[in-house]
């Protein structure tokens, strides 16, 4: 396994503390944890695409990075108004 694959696995460990906040924190703290997890997943997808030498799979992190803004704003807006 290349260094990129190992880095992806190590970064996935960072989801655990964020998951704890997601489950046990307040609603707004959970949103922060959700955003952190989204960013980590974007990086992990890029690392895996590079680690397995599959250029086509670089589309996943790019698309997720784009969708992160839209989904995050919609979710926060709903949270701000109705939840």
């Amino acid at each position, binding site marked *: 396994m290349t260094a*990129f694959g190992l880095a992806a696995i190590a970064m996935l460990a960072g989801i655990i503390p964020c998951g704890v906040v997601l489950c046990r924190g307040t609603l707004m703290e959970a949103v922060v944890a959700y955003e952190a997890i989204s960013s980590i997943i974007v990086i992990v997808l*890029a690392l895996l695409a590079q680690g397995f030498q599959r250029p086509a799979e670089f589309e996943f992190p790019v698309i997720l990075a784009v969708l992160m803004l839209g989904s995050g704003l919609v979710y*926060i807006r709903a949270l701000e*108004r109705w939840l």
Partner: protein
Amino acid sequence: MTARHVTADVLLALAVLVVLASCVGVLAMRGVYDKIHFLTPVSLVAPFLVAVAISVQMGLRENTSSSWLMLAFLVLSGPFLTHATLRAARIREKGDWRPGTRATGHGKGADGGENGGDQAGGGRADAGKESR
């Protein structure tokens, strides 16, 4: 192992350290305002380090351009998301995001939701509850 590989490995290790430290920070800090400070390293610094690592290892290739594109989207979206999150937190806490307005739960300020339209719409939920 060439110098390129070593440099890429060091950059990747740095990115992993940044992410793990930020995640511990998100866990350890109290309150959304403190936790959100640790979002920037995850969504900006670590992707930058990873993009540089990929560039160093691969040179100018398709992977490199995609990783920089990913970084560009993350850099663009990060400040908007952070601002929106803090705004939502403040509205949920005080009923209005603007300083000086006290909208939560004390009747008067709750009109921020009524008059503020889009900008202070968050006051509505609380406003309805409190006026009853």
